[in-house]
């Protein structure tokens, strides 16, 4: 049993507000031999400075930077320690301070979190957050071996050197406990890969059917091939500012609130606890769930849920004044490294109650256009194409997600995804059936960055500030 003391539940109180004003990214590919890592980072940096309609010219904006936070998941992949120093120098940011941040799959989110604290504290008025991963230096199976070192070496890794194998038992347990059909997971894969078709940045867009997913090869039972993200190469960046500077740089800044949580790497070792309640939840509302868990030898968070995600959401909703997530949020980017991690997360961040996660999909609320009702979905998920369809160059992922939410809130989905020149820049042709995935009048979005089997998670609320 874990029991958090009231002091542990102190809601973060920043000294000053933090704003996101610009983002940049590369496209993402399984292999990217055309460019070295630093050259990819420069691509994202240039886009950040040049293509966000900032009121200062790119080099003037660069001249405002005080601090850099870099996200890179694994030195193994790059076969290079201290990439941060190489990238920092290559971007021409010497002698400014920089730190490298590593929290597995949540590395990008943690880099955003640390970058935000540099601004919130007054350490910096303008912080560059940039992340990358280069997973094409090794064969895919060697890459899987490397990634699996993010499981516990003593008690888990030797059971399987494939990360899907750590999510597969969670999927099994979740579906038994909450009676979920395989088709619900498959629908998530179909949706996110289809949304990726409209993104010039995407690595594996695809127009699949639920049957395509279910007929695919099993990677680790019950997870099929199309339910798993791929090795990825690319970089993404974000520029965080103080309030005063944000409004000097842009008329459309976005307020950023971000918090984190963490939990043991070993899923089977998670001690049970009472559910920390989000503002819209009550103990009575979960009486049925505790009864159900008692009947089914269950516990919270168990194999079904992510305590770290719940902790991060608990904090960030209180920071941002979110009282009813499904009503207050206009879009969400989840960490859909596997369909099951996407599905499990809906309960953790309160888009549904725990135990009812599948309803977020079956209701159609997770779509831009709800196919069940023909109306707009309540909180479209992963319009970027997510990790399944667009990218998971790990250190970049949490930053890329925030960038996509930023552009949605600024009403710039079409600018960044619909311009044929953007597609051509990456050697692609804009599809003839391209559709805008711009959310109408979006005011607030949520971006969830997630590591391991929930070892580190950040939740970021981005809010239109004009």
């Amino acid at each position: 049993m874990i029991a958090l003391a009231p002091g542990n539940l102190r809601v973060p109180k920043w000294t000053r507000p933090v704003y996101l004003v610009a983002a940049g990214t590369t496209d993402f590919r399984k292999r990217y031999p055309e460019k070295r890592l630093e050259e990819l980072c420069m691509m994202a940096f240039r886009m950040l400075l040049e293509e966000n309609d900032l009121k200062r010219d790119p080099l003037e904006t660069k001249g405002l930077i005080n601090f850099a936070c870099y996200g890179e998941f694994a030195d193994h992949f790059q076969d290079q320690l201290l990439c941060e120093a190489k990238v920092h120098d290559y971007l021409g940011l010497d002698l400014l301070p920089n730190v490298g941040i590593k929290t597995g799959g949540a590395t990008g989110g943690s880099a955003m979190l640390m970058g935000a604290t540099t601004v919130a504290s007054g350490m910096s008025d303008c912080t560059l957050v940039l992340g990358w991963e280069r997973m094409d230096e090794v064969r895919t199976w060697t890459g899987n071996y490397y990634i699996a070192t993010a499981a516990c070496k003593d008690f888990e890794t030797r059971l399987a050197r494939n990360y899907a194998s750590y999510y597969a038992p969670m999927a099994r347990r979740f579906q038994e406990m909450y009676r979920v059909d395989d088709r619900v997971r498959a629908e998530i894969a179909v949706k996110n890969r289809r949304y990726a078709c409209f993104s010039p940045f995407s690595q594996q867009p695809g127009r699949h059917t639920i049957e395509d997913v279910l007929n695919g090869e099993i990677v680790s039972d019950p997870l099929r091939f199309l339910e798993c993200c791929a090795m990825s190469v690319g970089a993404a960046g974000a520029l965080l500012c103080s309030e005063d500077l944000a409004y000097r740089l842009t008329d459309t800044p976005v307020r950023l609130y971000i918090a984190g949580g963490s939990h043991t790497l070993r899923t089977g070792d998670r001690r049970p606890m009472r559910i920390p309640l989000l503002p819209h939840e009550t103990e009575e509302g979960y009486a049925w769930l505790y009864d159900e868990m008692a009947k089914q030898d269950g516990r919270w968070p168990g194999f079904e849920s992510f305590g770290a995600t719940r902790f991060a959401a608990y904090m960030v909703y209180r920071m941002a004044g979110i009282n009813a997530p499904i009503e207050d949020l206009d879009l969400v980017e989840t960490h859909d490294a596997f369909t099951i991690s996407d599905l499990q997360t809906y309960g953790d961040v309160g888009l549904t109650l725990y135990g009812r996660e599948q309803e977020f999909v079956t209701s159609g609320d997770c779509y831009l256009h709800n196919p069940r009702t023909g109306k707009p979905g309540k909180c479209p998920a992963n319009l970027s194409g997510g990790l399944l369809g667009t990218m998971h160059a790990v250190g970049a992922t949490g930053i890329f997600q925030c960038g996509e939410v930023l552009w949605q809130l600024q009403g710039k989905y079409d600018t960044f995804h619909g311009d044929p020149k953007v597609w051509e820049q990456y050697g692609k042709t804009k599809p003839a059936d391209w559709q805008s995935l711009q959310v109408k009048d979006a005011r607030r979005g949520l971006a969830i960055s997630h590591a391991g089997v929930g070892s580190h998670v950040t939740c970021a609320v981005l809010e239109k500030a004009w």
Partner: protein
Amino acid sequence: MTDGNVAAMEPSTISIVGDAWILHVPRFGEEGTHYHTYGLLTPYFKGLAEGRLLATRCISPACPISKGNGQLWLPPRADCPDCHKPAKGLPLISRWGCPWLVGSVFRARFARLGPLYGFTTSTKFAFGAV
């Protein structure tokens, strides 16, 4: 480095994808080989193999540091760190009038052209070492 040590070095293996050279770094045997791309710096390494030493410089008049007449970068950079202009369109510098040539490689060795991720066949290939 003495001649004896050079002779004892195993020839490097590279693969070519498009314009890029990819160096094989067999850290832990075949399964643990890192296939490291030289990306936009490939012309530099190709130059070495052809007996030429290359450098880059910034020629962007808008650059606040180089003002269009930058100092040599050696090792070279594909992008100027001061104005971010990409190397594409930037001529590599010449000492003797030839736009690419600033020096000559004093020793050349052979490298193998090898299978990338195990997918192509091997042939002999010229490679330079300074």
